[in-house]
């Protein structure tokens, strides 16, 4: 479902991604952990072309983009349609209601009929526990509620994979559980997810596989019990000790 080969990205002199290879099957939930600035968010943003990689090849479902050469905006868009994105800071559209946020892209981008989209959107809001808040604007919602709307918004496009960039980091600790709860259910239902997070609780809950990122490379990967319980690399152990403290 996701195939990445030799992905490289530099910002100025700094190499952020140093030849990443990654494969992920349908229904698999992968979590990326690692110290700040190790390149995990850049990796996620390269996947849906919010950053343009310098080298490498990205395939999501049936769309492949090869880095280098002219940017093909239409192909980028096709790739993005297959990869739903959830941001750390939610980025809900403040001038639209929760329902409007969820309906906007299916109606405007996919051109689906409004009533069908509305029914689907209300269903999604119910799934994330917000059917009571469909008419509220983002400014009237808590952070946790906003992030759940953002997840519903991404799901409404029925993407092949869901990319989540630190989905609980901007939330107060007591609000994180409501978002984790939604993501746990998605993982259980067999969604293909790739999540960047510092929230180890979330990583344990939803990961089939955990990747440990360091200095632009994947240092170690494995199922959560193994990676958290018995990490192979010294770097991984150091990192896990630091987040436990």
């Amino acid at each position, binding site marked *: 479902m996701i195939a990445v080969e030799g992905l490289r990205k530099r910002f100025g002199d700094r190499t952020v991604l140093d030849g990443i290879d990654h494969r992920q099957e349908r229904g698999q939930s992968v979590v990326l952990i690692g110290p700040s600035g190790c390149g995990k968010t850049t990796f996620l943003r390269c996947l849906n072309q919010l950053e343009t990689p310098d080298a490498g090849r990205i395939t999501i479902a049936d769309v492949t983009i090869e880095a280098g050469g002219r940017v093909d905006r239409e192909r980028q*868009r096709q790739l993005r349609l297959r990869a739903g994105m959830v*941001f750390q800071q939610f980025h809900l559209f*403040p001038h639209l209601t929760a329902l409007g946020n969820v309906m906007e*892209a299916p109606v405007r981008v996919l051109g689906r009929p409004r009533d069908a989209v509305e029914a689907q959107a209300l269903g999604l809001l119910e799934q994330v526990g917000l059917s009571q808040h469909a008419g509220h*604007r983002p400014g009237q919602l808590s952070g946790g509620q906003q992030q759940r709307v953002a997840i519903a918004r*991404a799901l409404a496009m029925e993407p092949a994979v869901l990319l989540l960039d630190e989905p609980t980091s901007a939330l107060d600790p007591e609000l994180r559980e409501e978002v984790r709860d939604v993501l746990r259910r998605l993982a259980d239902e067999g969604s293909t997810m790739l999540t960047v997070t510092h929230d180890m609780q979330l990583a344990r809950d939803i990961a089939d596989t955990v990747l440990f990122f360091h200095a632009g490379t994947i240092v170690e990967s494995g199922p959560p019990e193994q990676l958290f319980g018995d990490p192979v690399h010294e770097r991984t152990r150091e990192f896990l000790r630091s987040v436990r403290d």
Partner: protein
Amino acid sequence: METHCVGPARRDDEAGRPKRGRGARSLAWLLVLLVPFFGGVGAFKTSAADAWDEVSRAGILRYANDAEGGAPYIFHPPGSPDQLTGFEVDLAAAIAGRLGLKPAFVQNNWDVILPALNQGGSFDVVIAGIEWTPENRAKVALSRPYFAFGQQLVVRADATGLDSLDALRGKRVGVLSATASFRMLEKHGGIDARVYQDNVNYFRDLESGRLDAVLTDTPIARVNLAGNDKLRRAGPPFAPGFYAVAVRPGETALLARIDGAIDALLKDGTLEKIYRKYDLWDDGQAALTAWKPGGETTAEKHSALKEWGTYLPILLRASVTTIWVTCSGMALAVVLGLGLAIVRLYGPAPARWAAIAYIEVFRGTPLLLQIYFIYFGLAQQLGVRLSAGFAAVIALGLNYAATEAENYRAGIEGVPKGQLEASLALGMKRRLALRRILLPQALRISLPSVTNDFIAMFKDSSIVSVIALVELTKEYQIRAIDTGDYVGLGLMTAGIYFAMSYTASLGARALERKLGHDRR
């Protein structure tokens, strides 16, 4: 009154110092400016004696005129733009010479030349085609006449049947602001009077078909019709009148000397020589010799506040023009500005440069210049004849579009970057993201600045009066000159402006509240 503010300054003079003390002088100035404002014109006298003492001591006769007045009164001769000539320039020199003085020209806007005289200070007399009328005699002291003129109708050469005021009912007639011609049209009624600030542009507008006729003084008609085969006089001159020199009320000694000088110049043929030089001498000037001083002036004093029932409706009618010019101008500015902002931010390079050039040019040049260019320039060079109202809306709209474009650009750039990323991540094209996500948020950000500009335009719209559109400020000017009541009418006019701006800002605040849901 005897120990008035300029007293100390005068003592300096008596002590033999050539120049007055600076401090005392600026204080005197301040009071001179304030006293007529609060105390009324009549309460002010410059000194115990008369301006004549001062004039004769200085040896200079400072006379005011408006160089914009044009030929034959006062103008820059073709080819010598830094010189001044005209029959009033020659006349001023002759009067001064007769009195053993040197003439010194002081420029003053003609519209307000009499109030400026009464405020004292920068000139001693006005020699600027001031008409010998009861209205003017109520404001200033007038000398014996130096020129006899009549009212002349001017029409296009091919016009027929438009040779009297009665025939001009419902027609557009150009007229100079604050003149006997204007008052004549007003009294006559039923004529669509278009008020101009100068003696030249109404002839252009008559030629180009924006006017059906011009009513003006005979000397103006004579000079402007010479060598012009597109226009002709319609009917003989009528309603004879005189021009006279104006001095401040009560300055009898100065006035007596001016009267004497004009008398002498008339008798020794100097006046005739001057007027012949400008081809102005005609049989009508015989009236100068026959002239006898009239009785006391009978023009009544007006108080706009007491007669509000008369003046408020007049001002309100003018404010309708202000409102529609402003609202249409702003509508144009908003639409055009939005287009400019988008092209500037997202257009291909050449279009982007063009948008930047537009914005810088229209922001960086005066609105007044742009109005002249659009109204007169286009008609002259391209034959594009916009009506005054239309030209005003276009000029205000084009000018403000530059400002609005920058408001919107700031608004668009003020939308967090994450909004575009979220839109793109959902598969939106940039155009769709701009229209549905960025612009609605950007407009909310820009709204306070746009409101500000809207209110500013209510006030800026007064500039359009230069192209013969009588809006609120112009109407105020006309009525204030007529009645001399600058304060009462000013308060009324300010009140109307305030009501318009305040309504606009209340509306904008309501709109901001309505759109402001996204902010907690």
